[in-house]
Structures are given as C-alpha cells and as structure tokens.
C-alpha cells in the first residue's frame, strides 16, 4: 500500500517510540505472561531431562564414553531447544492469533519487529532454563565433560542455532491456525531432528544420508555445538548452512506476519 505524504496543513504524526524501548517492553510482558503459567516452564525443563534418563544414561557405552556422552548431551540439548522453539512459536503464535487481545496489540503503535524480537529473546530465556537440568544430568550421571569456556561457547552456539527454528515456528504460527500448526510442527521437527543427527550420531548414517544431512539446519547446529563442546571440527559449510536457513526463515516469518490479518475468515 502506498503512503501519500501528509498534507502540509496537517501536523505529521509523531513517530513511534525507540524500537529498543518497545522490544524491552514486549519482552518484559511476554516473560511475565509465560512465567505465570508454571507448568509451561516446568514442562520445558522436564522433557529433555526425561529423554536423558531414558535414552542416554542407561547405555553405558554412550554414557561412560566422554566424547559420545558429550555428543549425546549436545544432540538432546539442541533437540530440546528446537522443539521448544518450534512448539512455542508455531503453536504459541497460532494460539495467540486466535485470542481477541492479539488484534488489539497489533493496532498499538509498534511495528512487527519489537514483538518478534521479544518473542525470540523470551524463547531463548526459557530454552536456557530447559538446558539447566540437562547439563546437571550430563555432569552427574554420564562421563560428558566440558570446560567452563566450552560450556559458555556451547550455550552461545545453541542460542544462535535456535534462531532459525524460532523464525520457522513464527512463519508456521502466523500462517496457520492452531489446529493446523500442531501437525505441521511435528512433521517438520522429527524428520529434521533425525536427519540432523540429534538422536543418532551422523557417523552411523549411510553416506547419502550424511550428505543430505549436511544441508539441514539441525545438522549444522549440531556439528557447530559439538565443535564448541569437544573441539571436533564441524564440516566447512556448517555456518553458511545455518545462516542461510536463518535468512530464509526470517523472510518467511516476516512475509507470514505481513499477510496475516488476525483470525482467518471463511
């Protein structure tokens, strides 16, 4: 839509507030909204911990091998973050859009960016909460070991790796209804997690799957995370693949937000 300049006799509308101020505002209230429903926070922390206890801790050749255990923790951590991102945003955004408060918030004088960025930050905060029990279990019950520096680098990498999934989740959430978003998120998440080597390490893949795997954002994120935690080099294309998907999903998310006009009408 084109915007003609305001006629000279009209006072031009004063601009919106500083986007940083607006982002902080949205982050503060999104955090409050999330934290007031404790089961959502706890569920986020429980699922990855249970997966650790069921799939990693009982297998001693994985749990007692420092490299394998660290890789297993890395894979599950990334899976936890991806799944939290896709579900929180894919489903959460779709559900929010069906609430009558959503069109109201969209009519407030702020563009899409402060709200989207606040969502990403809010998701990152709760993803970090979800990692805490995983790190503790890995530390107490397996031979996984990292230095403090490796751990901090790993957290940085996992947050960077979560960004494309947050954006993909938003693209789904702004395009579909909550009912449609749920199966779509599941259909997207599990194949990506398998193909990306989050459940089985990619060394066990046949070579065609290994090649395919390297173009997925999950594999790129996993290898970068393993590199940060163990020093095992990621493949050369890992960063470009991750950043490329981030750009693609960011575009999709912005397009979906722009096209969305609140609830769908039939």
């Amino acid at each position: 839509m084109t915007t003609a300049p305001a006629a000279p006799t009209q006072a031009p509308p004063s601009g919106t507030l500083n986007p940083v101020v607006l982002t902080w505002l949205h982050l503060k209230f999104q955090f409050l909204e999330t934290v007031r429903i404790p089961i959502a926070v706890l569920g986020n922390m429980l699922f990855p911990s249970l997966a650790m206890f069921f799939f990693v801790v009982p297998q001693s050749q994985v749990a007692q091998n420092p490299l394998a255990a660290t890789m297993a923790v890395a894979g599950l951590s990334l899976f936890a973050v991806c799944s939290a991102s896709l579900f929180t945003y894919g489903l959460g955004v779709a559900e929010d859009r069906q609430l009558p408060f959503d069109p109201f918030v969209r009519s407030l004088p702020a563009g899409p960016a402060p709200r989207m960025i606040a969502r990403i930050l809010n998701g990152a905060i709760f993803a970090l909460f979800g990692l805490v029990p995983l790190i503790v279990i890995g530390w107490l019950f397996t031979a996984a070991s990292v230095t403090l520096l490796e751990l901090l680098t790993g957290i940085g990498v996992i947050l960077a790796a979560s960004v494309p999934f947050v954006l993909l989740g938003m693209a789904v959430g702004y395009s579909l209804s909550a009912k449609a978003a749920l199966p779509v998120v599941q259909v997207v998440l599990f194949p990506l997690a398998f193909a990306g080597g989050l459940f089985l390490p990619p060394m066990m893949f046949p070579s065609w799957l290994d090649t395919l795997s390297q173009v997925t954002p999950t594999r790129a994120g996993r290898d970068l995370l393993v590199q940060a935690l163990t020093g095992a080099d990621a493949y050369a294309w890992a960063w470009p693949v991750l950043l490329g998907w981030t750009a693609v999903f960011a575009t999709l998310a912005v397009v979906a937000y722009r096209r969305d006009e609140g609830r769908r009408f039939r």
Partner: protein
Amino acid sequence: MTVITVDGVTRRFGDVTALDDVSLDVAPGELVGMLGPNGAGKTTLLSLISGQRRPDVGTVRLLGGDPRDAATRVGLGITPQETGLPPTLRVGEVVDFVGGHFPDPVPSAELLEQFGLTDKTRKQTGSLSGGQKRRLAVALSLVGRPRVVLLDEPTTGLDVTARQALWDAIRQYHAGGGTVLLTSHYLEEVQALAERVVVIDHGVVRADDSLDGILSRVGLRRVSVRTTADLTSWSGVSRGEHRGDGVQELYTPDADALVRALVTSGVEFSDLQIRGASLEEAFAEMVADDNPLEGAGR
C-alpha cells in the same frame, strides 16, 4: 483536515462482502455513532481504520497517514474486546504495557483512579467482573492521550450505573477535544452520546446525518389507535402491527393524512396517539430489506 477518511472502500472475506464501496469522513472533535445490526460491517470498518486489515479497494487514512504505518497509530486509541485481556497479567501491568507504547501516557495510577479501578491494580485481569473488564478496556483506549478513539460496543453487558460512568468518561474525553467513533447496538447509547449517526447495514452506509437529521429524514410518525378494523394495510401506512390489547401501531410518513382518512372512513376508534418515531424505529425502517430508505424519505 479530517481525522478519519474512508474513501470508496470495499472489503470481502471469501464470498462475503463485508463492506461495499463505503465512504466516511470524520472531522476533528466529532463524536460519531455507528449503528447497525450484527454482521453489518461495523467491526470490519473499525479494523480497517485501526490498520489491522487493508481494504481490497479504496483508501483509508487516519490522521493524515496510512493506518498500517505504526507511527500513524500513535494518535489512535482503541478498546480491546473485554474477553481478550491476557488473563494472567495484573490490571496495572496491562495498563503499563499499553501505555508503554506512547510518548506521553496517562500515569497508570491516575487512569485507574478515573475509571474506579484503583483497588484492582494488583489483581489479574482474569479475576475482574464483566463490568470492570469493560471499564479497563475503555481506559486502555485512552491511556496514550489519543487524538481519536475507536470504541467498539463500549458498554455491552453493563448495568445502568456502570454505563453512565463510562458515558461520562467518553463525554469528558470528547469535551477535551478528542474525536470519537463508536459502534453500538444500543440505540439509546448512540442517542445519548453521538452528534452524528452513521447507519450501516449489509456493508453499505444507509444513512449519515445528524441525530435530528436521521429522525426527520426518515420522517416517520407513529400512530397508535384502538380499533377493530385492520388499518395495517391502508395506503400511507409503511409498516403496522397489532398489539395484544386491540391497539394497532402504524408507522406512516404523513400522520395528518392517515388521521383524516381514519375520521372520514367512519371506522370506530379510540385512544388515538401520535408521536415521532424513536431512533430505534427509524433504524428498523432503514435496515429493513424490503423497505429501502429512499422509499420512506420525504
């Protein structure tokens, strides 16, 4: 300049045409009531003016800018639907959140005081009664000191006292120079607040005039009379109904002619009363499918 300019706007949802070539201008300081049955297109029109949707055809301008531009909306206040307040946030937090979008918001304490919600500041919005939610919703539309507010059914479901209190708040805002566009099914509400009435039905503006203009333009008189003869099909009667107690209510553009005809016909009658039609009656006439406004106008 105009505060709101809607020019030749058409908006469809699939097969349904919600708005069909609608034009509407609102000048600064006007208090306009928009009246229409459910599904007439009122809410769709508000969503176009507040930038939530874009028209398929035509243009919408708000305060001289594009309403889809966030900066234009700094001068706009709207009410959320009461059912849509985030239930886990406290009342004070919602006010802070909404006010935080504006350069010079009314301080939360002052606003909540004005709307009698001070003792609810620390309560989660989910615990408020329907009336309190409505008050909070209207308060939220005013927190940014807007130049124009859009009020969608501001007093739906309120008792008389609560409604009066909200009307006072709306009048006070209007007296301070604010522009108001409100929708209502309560004719009484439009009659109490609005200076100008826009009647909208099936996505078309049926009438746009001053309150008095609307009433006189329809020009209907209500003649009620007790008689055994059936007068509802007489010529000059645009609509009539039998009441249970033997009284017939007849709407006619020319009460004098009808009474003259009644007297000369020699039909027995009693309890003759004539008065101008209320807005409700005028409204029913205007939105009746088989009775377009042009037919009733004089």
